[in-house]
């Protein structure tokens, strides 16, 4: 048995770095904080790689165990209901450790160049460290309550980092939006946790996810509005997951979150935090599968719908970061589909494995896409595609790394995305045809919009730039190259040997027909983008005119934001908030103010009693005594 107690260091190093840079960062040169954060993360990164090696490869066993090297009792509420803080190692958490530390490490290096000279550089690094700590804590949680605590922490970090440029009104609006939407979803998560733990008397993942355990017997037969209580609980847990992962209809915060600095978008809003929801569903997967299959397939449909929906919106957007944000939504939808249609043991667990695999590869190539977008913005000083074109001559490294990421997301072999996406499609093909076709079409749209971006930015018209764009500094290109290599090669990791719902390796047969089909649709998308955007021409404009209203609706993101605004402003504010505010101001406050003012009035009247004149007091006192004495004499005598 290997000793894994050092895993505790992995989250705690960033935490300590956060404390130091957060408290003392402004006394030193900014670069000190940056280097401290980067070095701390480098150590965590190496430790995670060691953990992954020890866990996956050093022991020759045919199934993996969930290990808990550390579990500290935090709150002991009752004998059965105890909240613990601990470290849980199982295949998905070890994989997430690698993902989080890799991306975070790369983003730390990248930000040394990208954020150079920004005001609040040390603040940025402190928050990055805090975020990394929270995210690592989230993936290593031993129980669902600990997970909830870290859910809130990552939400808070996301809030702080989206609002990094706190002087920009749009950033403030975006940070509030992200926080409120995810908080609202977390409310569901909390209620779900409470229902679940109320009936099962435990928070522990180990007990909750054990197949065939009888802790759910108290829930049997309970139902509310025709849906069983356990389904409600798990559905509400998924609501929290959907909020974090920006699934429809909670997706509205993610595109706006792009107001944050680009490295933050890469780290939090593409690679790590937004997959927390997928991770949660994967963590609770046995519960979903064995007890609430209805919720599980619902998750699949939500994921499928979101992926198609977001992909369609991505076609018409012009802000390159927003395109990538919608692409993130779409890819997370893929992962949800993978989980939704998965089975449990053996080859049936393909969907689960594929979802985790896609999470892994997506983290690499999506972080890369964002970081290249950052390099482009760094060079051009604009977020909009109209201001770009022909950049391949100026930014050769960015161009090639972007191409690698774009091929990966389009699912072209041998890039990473091909393997994971293909496995999700294969899993869907065998269990749910509707989701399969949705995802199949989405795959085509994905490669279309991502290559629209590629051709529009790096080829297309020859834009005249005021300043000649220049390649990013070395601190930015090194992470790009590293992630490009990762996006190219991580697909060859034999994930089905590592991750499965029952933690036993299984084998899959490649299906040539499906592979050909998925590559073909990817190529089709690329070809479409080639025709439309490689050379400057007027086909895109003609097409958008031809689609007319459809184009406008898509351009405005199906008016979801407007619907939200309508609901909140007109319905919630006018019909709920205003009466409540009136009640609060006039009834609740009125009562309290009334008590206060009556007291004040009375005390003003009676304060003359206390004249401060000694002899008056003495007279009253003596008179009182005499009165008492006489009274007693009269009655007793």
């Amino acid at each position, binding site marked *: 048995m290997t000793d894994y107690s050092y895993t505790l260091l992995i989250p705690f190093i960033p935490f300590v770095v956060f404390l130091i840079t957060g408290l003392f960062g402004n006394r030193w040169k900014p670069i000190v904080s940056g280097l401290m954060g980067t070095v701390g993360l480098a150590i965590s990164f190496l430790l995670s790689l060691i953990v992954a090696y020890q866990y996956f490869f050093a022991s020759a066993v045919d199934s993996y165990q969930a290990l808990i090297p550390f579990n500290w009792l935090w709150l002991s509420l009752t004998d059965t209901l105890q909240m613990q803080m601990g470290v849980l190692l199982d295949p998905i958490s070890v994989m997430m450790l690698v993902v989080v530390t890799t991306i975070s490490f790369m983003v730390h290096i990248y930000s040394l160049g990208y954020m150079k000279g920004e005001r609040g550089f040390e603040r940025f690094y402190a928050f990055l460290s805090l975020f990394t700590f929270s995210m690592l804590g989230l993936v290593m949680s031993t129980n669902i309550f600990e997970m909830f605590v870290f859910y809130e922490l990552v939400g808070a970090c996301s809030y702080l980092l989206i609002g990094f440029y706190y002087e920009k009104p749009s950033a403030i609006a975006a940070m509030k939006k992200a926080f409120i939407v995810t908080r609202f979803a977390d409310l569901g998560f909390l209620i779900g946790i409470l229902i679940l733990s109320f009936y099962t008397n435990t928070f522990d993942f180990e007990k909750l996810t054990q197949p065939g355990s009888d802790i759910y017997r108290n829930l049997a037969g309970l139902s509310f509005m025709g849906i069983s209580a356990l389904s409600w609980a798990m559905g509400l847990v998924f609501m929290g997951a959907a909020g974090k992962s920006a699934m429809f209809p909670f997706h509205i915060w993610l595109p706006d979150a792009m107001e944050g600095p680009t490295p933050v978008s890469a780290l939090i809003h593409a690679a790590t935090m937004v997959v927390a929801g997928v991770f949660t569903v994967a963590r609770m997967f046995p519960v979903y599968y064995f007890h609430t299959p209805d919720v599980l397939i619902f998750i699949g449909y939500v994921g499928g719908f979101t992926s198609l929906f977001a992909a369609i919106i991505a076609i018409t957007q012009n802000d390159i970061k927003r395109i990538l944000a919608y692409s993130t939504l779409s890819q997370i939808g893929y992962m949800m589909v993978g989980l939704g249609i998965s089975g449990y043991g053996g080859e049936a667990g393909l969907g689960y494995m594929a979802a985790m695999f896609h999470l892994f590869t997506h983290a690499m190539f999506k972080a890369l896409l964002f970081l290249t977008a950052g390099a482009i913005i760094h060079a051009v000083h604009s977020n909009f595609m109209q201001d770009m074109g022909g950049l391949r001559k100026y930014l050769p490294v960015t161009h090639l790394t972007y191409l690698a990421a774009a091929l990966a997301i389009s699912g072209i072999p041998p890039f990473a995305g091909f393997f994971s996406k293909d496995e999700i499609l294969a899993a869907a093909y065998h269990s749910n045809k509707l989701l399969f076709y949705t995802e199949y079409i989405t795959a085509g749209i994905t490669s279309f919009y991502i290559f629209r971006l590629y051709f529009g930015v790096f080829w297309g018209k020859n834009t005249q730039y005021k300043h000649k764009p220049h390649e990013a500094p070395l601190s930015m290109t090194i992470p790009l190259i590293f992630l490009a290599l990762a996006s190219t090669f991580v697909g060859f990791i034999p994930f089905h040997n590592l991750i499965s719902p029952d933690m036993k390796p299984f084998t899959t047969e490649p299906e040539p027909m499906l592979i050909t089909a998925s590559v073909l649709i990817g190529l089709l998308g690329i070809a479409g983008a080639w025709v439309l955007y490689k050379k400057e021409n007027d086909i895109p404009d003609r097409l958008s005119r031809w689609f007319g209203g459809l184009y406008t609706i898509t351009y405005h993101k199906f008016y979801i934001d407007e619907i939200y605004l309508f609901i909140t402003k007109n319905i919630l504010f006018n019909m709920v908030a205003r009466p409540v505010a009136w009640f609060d101001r006039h009834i609740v406050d009125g009562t309290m103010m009334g008590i206060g003012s009556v007291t004040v009035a009375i005390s003003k009247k009676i*304060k003359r009693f*206390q*004249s*401060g*004149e*000694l*002899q008056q007091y*003495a*007279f009253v006192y*003596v008179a009182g005594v005499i009165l008492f004495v006489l009274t007693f004499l009269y009655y007793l005598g």
Partner: protein
Amino acid sequence: MIQGLSIYHFLVVSTLMFFIGITGFIIRQNLITILLSVELILNSVVINFLVFNRFLYPDQLQGHFFSLFIIGIAAAEASVAVALIINIYRRIRNINADNVNEMKF
């Protein structure tokens, strides 16, 4: 035992002293006079202690001891009070009790 005097004689004197003290305490303005009145009250109490001890429990000594304590405390109290009065005088150039009402409300 003092010849020819009953307990009532003593008690009448001490009661008169007590109420003279109370009256003085209430009606006099000068703080020094008020202090004198307090001394009168204390001394009347001392007389009461001694008289009751002497007439009712002649073979015990508690009353005597209490008297001694009261005299000691009265001395200490007088010194503190005079110190206070001197301070008040320094502050407001006046030792009228009417004027010492700043601590009201």
